[in-house]
C-alpha cells in the first residue's frame, strides 16, 4: 500500500504543483470577497480530483497490466486510491484551515457555528463525491467514466424537478438537522468505505 501511495504521489506531484499556482488567485479572490469558504472548497475539490488524475495516468500507461504482475493484492491497488485521496485531504486541511481562520479573523465574515456547519458539509460532500467517482472510474475508465458521471449528475436535478412540491419540506427538514451536522463527515466516511468495497469487487472481476 505504501509503495502504491508513494508512486501515486510521485506521479501527480507535477500536477499538484501546477494546481497550487491556481490556488494563489483563488486565495486573493477569497480574501477580497471575505469568504474563507471559497478557498476551502477549492482546495477540497482540487484534492478530490487528484485520485482521478492518478487513475487517468495509470490508464494511459496500462499500469494495471504491470502492477498485477507484482506481489500486490487487488484490494491494495483499489484501496490505495482511496487512501491517496484521504491523505491528500488531510494534508490539504492542515494547510487550508489556518488560512481560512486567518481570512475569517480579519473579515469577521464567518461565525464559528456557521464555519463548522460549512466545514462538515463540505467534507461530507467531498467524501460522497469520491465514493461516487472512484468505483465509476475503476469500472468504466476515465473516458466512459466521465460520461457516466455526467449522466449521474443530471439525476439529482431531475429528482428535484419531479419532487418540486415536496422539496420545500425537505429543505426545512434538513435545516432542522443542522445540529447533527458534525455527523456528516462520519456518514461520508462510512459511504466511502462502502464505495471501496464495491470498487474492490469491481476491480477483482476485471481482466487486464
Amino acid at each position, binding site marked *: 500500500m505504501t509503495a502504491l501511495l508513494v508512486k501515486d504521489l510521485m506521479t501527480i506531484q507535477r500536477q499538484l504543483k501546477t494546481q497550487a499556482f491556481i490556488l494563489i488567485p483563488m486565495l486573493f479572490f477569497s480574501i477580497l470577497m471575505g469568504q474563507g469558504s471559497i478557498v476551502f472548497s477549492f482546495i477540497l475539490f482540487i484534492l478530490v480530483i487528484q485520485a482521478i488524475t492518478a487513475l487517468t495516468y495509470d490508464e494511459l500507461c496500462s499500469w494495471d497490466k504491470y502492477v498485477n504482475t507484482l506481489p*500486490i493484492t487487488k484490494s491494495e491497488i483499489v484501496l490505495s486510491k482511496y487512501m491517496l485521496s484521504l491523505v491528500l485531504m488531510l494534508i490539504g486541511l492542515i494547510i487550508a484551515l489556518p488560512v481560512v481562520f486567518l481570512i475569517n479573523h480579519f473579515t469577521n465574515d464567518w461565525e464559528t457555528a456557521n464555519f463548522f456547519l460549512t466545514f462538515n458539509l463540505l467534507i461530507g460532500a467531498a467524501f460522497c463525491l469520491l465514493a461516487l467517482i472512484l468505483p465509476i472510474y475503476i469500472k468504466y475508465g476515465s473516458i466512459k467514466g466521465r460520461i457516466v458521471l455526467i449522466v449521474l449528475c443530471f439525476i439529482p436535478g431531475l429528482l428535484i424537478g419531479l419532487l418540486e412540491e415536496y422539496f420545500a419540506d425537505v429543505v426545512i427538514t434538513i435545516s432542522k438537522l443542522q445540529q447533527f451536522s458534525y455527523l456528516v463527515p462520519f456518514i461520508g466516511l462510512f459511504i466511502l468505505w462502502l464505495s471501496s468495497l464495491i470498487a474492490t469487487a469491481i476491480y477483482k472481476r476485471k481482466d487486464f
Partner: protein
Amino acid sequence: MNAIEIHDLHKGFEGFSLKDISFSVPQGTVMGFVGENGAGKSTTIKCMLNLLKKEYGEILLFGKDIVEYELAIKNDIGVVFDELHVPETLNATQLDKFMKRVFKTWDSNYYFERLTQFKVPKRKKVKELSRGMRMKLSIALALSHHPKLLILDEPTSGLDPIIRDEILDLFLAFMQDETHSILFSSHITSDLEKIADYITFIHNGEILFSESKDVLLYDYGIFKGTNEEISELPEQAIIQKREGTFGLEVLVLKNEISEAFTVERPTIEDIMLFFVKGSVQP
C-alpha cells in the same frame, strides 16, 4: 522440477480461444514461445499471470497454483512486456523508490548497476526515453529483485539488432544460475535460436509442438524435390509438406531417411512455416 506447468488451459473470447493448452518449462531452461501475431501467446502469458481469468485448466508456477499462491509466486517472477507500463512522468530513480517498497528482496545497488551498464539515464522521465531505453529499464526492473523465473512477452519486438543482442546477452547472464528459468515469447525466431533450449509453437490458440530446440534443428531436415522424388521418402519420415518457390518441400525426420536424400538444416522459422502453411497430404 518444472518452473511452469500448464495443463488443458482454456480461455474463450469472441472469435478466438485458447484450446486446452498444455506445455511445461523445466527449471533451468529457456522456453521459446513462438507463434504469429494473434496466435495466443500474450493471452497464454496473461492467464499464467492471472491477469486474465482462465475458464478451466491448471497453471502451476514452481509447482504451485497461480490463483491460490498468487502473491508468493509473484515474489519470485520478473515480467517484461513489449512496452513499459509505468506512468510516463516517473523516472528510473522514482521507480526504484516504488520497487523497494514492493519487494523485500529488491536490490537497489544491482538495479543502478544495470542502469549504468545499459546507459539508461536515472533521472530522465520515462516519456523522454527511447523505445530501446524503455525496454532496458523494464528488464532492469524485472531483474533487480533476483527472480527465479522471467516471463518475457515480446521483449525484443521493434528493437534494432544491436540492442536486441545486448538484451539477449543479459538473459544469458541471468541463466548462469541453473535454478533460473525463462519463458520467452517472440515471433523473432532468430532471437530464440540464440537463447532457447525448448520451443513451444502456438497457432490459432493451439499448441502445435513443444520440443527441444536441438531436436528441431538437428533431427529435422528439409528435402526439396519433385513429386516423384518425394514419393520415395518413407511415410514415417514425413512431418509436413508445402509448396516451395521451386517445387515441393518436405520437412522430414533425418534419421528416418536414407543418406542418399540431401536435406537442408531448417531454421525455427522454416519449421513454423511448414506447420502453418504446410499440410501432411501433398
